[in-house]
């Protein structure tokens, strides 16, 4: 047998072909564009783009759950809207609007709701089927929507209007460039944490979960726990997005919890490309901007045009827009850490 120790000193897992990493370039380019936008946009467009950034955060939560762990959640809006309603009630009933309180509260609400629903759907003795989880989350989204519409305390069909502005100390965070940059900082921070996570060994476990759930159970992975953790984490990020959204818009309404919002986030990620994080951001930005432009230019038929466009992308590019510029292997990435001098590294 070959002397292993001597080989190890030289061996490293080489790549089949060295390819230039495209993902970091796209990430930096998008960050640069986001940083400059308020300097060139009119105020109402800065407000619009702030909303888009918050929705990007929401899309990240879904990409983590579906794109990386393969859990099809059709109820992601429950965590988004649940946190939105939660912080709206804090503002309306208790007069609490400090960012240092309401944002962590939103995260906690999203996390707790996801843990509750995920615990029920994912923590059985045997791994749950995709259909069970999809229908379970869809049902939860519908149920929460109906609950909000029918409960007078939550404002019924009208939701909760006139939420006070979010504050940092004595400074009011109203719509505009300050809120925009706050949303951008939070988006970048969450993106960085998610990126670290999915490139860590935990990310490798997620890749195994997505690729062959049954197989990794035989390696000793507690598959159900892994799913519940990532589902709850996704819920926490959706809750963060929901709390920002509520204060940015100034009101919450039942649609934030419902099936329409849950489907919308699926489309963002599907359109941009799942399992890359940046694909979720691109999908959200493109869909929201195209919707905005189409709704101004073609007021009667814009949903049909948008739907046809999305159908084309999904039919001809099932891996989303990101697959036009990023290779399959780079999207999957690699997790091994080679010795110095090797060209094997994470994407």
């Amino acid at each position, binding site marked *: 047998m070959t002397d292993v120790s001597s080989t190890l000193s030289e*061996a490293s897992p080489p790549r089949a072909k060295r390819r230039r990493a495209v993902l970091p370039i796209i990430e930096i380019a998008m960050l640069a564009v986001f940083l400059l936008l308020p300097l060139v946009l009119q105020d109402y467009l800065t407000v619009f783009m702030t909303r888009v950034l918050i929705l990007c955060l929401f899309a990240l939560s879904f990409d983590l759950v579906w794109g990386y762990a393969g859990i099809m959640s059709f109820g992601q809006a429950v965590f988004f809207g649940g946190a939105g309603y939660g912080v709206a009630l804090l503002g309306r009933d208790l007069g609490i609007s400090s960012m240092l309180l309401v944002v962590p509260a939103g995260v906690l609400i999203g996390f707790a709701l996801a843990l509750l629903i995920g615990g029920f759907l994912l923590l059985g003795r045997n791994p749950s089927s995709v259909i069970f989880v999809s229908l379970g989350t869809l049902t939860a989204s519908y149920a929460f929507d109906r609950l909000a519409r029918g409960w007078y305390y939550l404002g019924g069909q009208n939701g909760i209007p006139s939420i006070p502005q979010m504050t940092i100390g004595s400074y009011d965070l109203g719509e505009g460039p300050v809120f925009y940059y706050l949303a951008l900082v939070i988006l970048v921070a969450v993106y960085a944490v998610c990126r670290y996570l999915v490139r860590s*060994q*935990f990310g490798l476990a997620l890749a195994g979960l997505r690729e062959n759930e049954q197989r990794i*159970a*035989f390696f*000793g992975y*507690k598959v159900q*726990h892994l799913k519940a953790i990532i589902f709850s984490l996704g819920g926490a990020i959706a809750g963060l997005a929901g709390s920002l959204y509520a204060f940015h818009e100034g009101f919450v309404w039942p649609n934030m919890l419902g099936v329409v919002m849950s489907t919308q986030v699926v489309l963002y990620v599907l359109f941009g490309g799942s399992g890359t994080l940046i694909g979720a951001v691109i999908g959200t930005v493109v869909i929201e901007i195209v919707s905005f432009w189409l709704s101004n230019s073609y007021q009667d038929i814009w949903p049909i045009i948008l739907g046809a466009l999305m159908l084309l992308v999904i039919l001809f590019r099932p891996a989303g827009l990101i697959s036009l510029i990023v290779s*399959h292997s780079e999207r999957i990435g*690699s997790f091994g850490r080679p010795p110095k001098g090797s060209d094997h590294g994470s994407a």
Partner: protein
Amino acid sequence: MALLEARGMKKVFGKLTALNGAELTVQPNEFHGLIGPNGSGKSTMMKCIAGAEVPTEGRVGFDGADITSASPAERARAGMSLKFQITSVLPALTLYDNVLLALQGQTALSKLMFSRTRGLLHDKVMAMLEQFRLVDRAGEHASALSHGQQQWLEIAMALAPEPKLLLLDEPTGGMSLEERRVTGELLAPIKSRCSLVIVEHDLDFIRDICDRLTVLDQGAVLDTGTVEQIQASPKVQEVYLRRA
């Protein structure tokens, strides 16, 4: 004390009785072959031992504990490892990541989040790939391997966590004669480290590497003993001749 004891194993799928009182005993560091005609219940027996199927009746004892109702993950953490009949490497991942995935399976999830263990596991990953002659292709995706190499990779993955018992279901299925010979060479050195239960149709291969054999027929044990005893068994010869 035996490492593995499966007693009174019965498995019923609707009207089909796949196992009907089958038994298996494996000692530490023993290579044990499970043979029999097609449909005799070999793969079902392996699945019931590994936890992929729950036996309708019977009991599985492993390393002194009753694991009959344990999940596959609990069995893996107890020291049992399985290579499926159908190759199930993860084609989208590199060879390196496939082995790393197997190796870190018993690490606490909280530790995986911080990846502190990755550096420690690197040498083990490379050693496994080296042992199975795949180290030069460590950075390639598993989908690029030939069928035989995928089988080797899967054996390497199953061995990576250093199990006490390795279950191999048809490890040479679809391999060329040369690949089968190499597979035998690759498995021989593990005898000092773990026990092996192997299901295989290639009787020459089984004869070369196994200490003892158990022959299944119609879900029950037909005979069990050393290779020589089984070769001389009239009952076994009758079954194989009957099916030939």
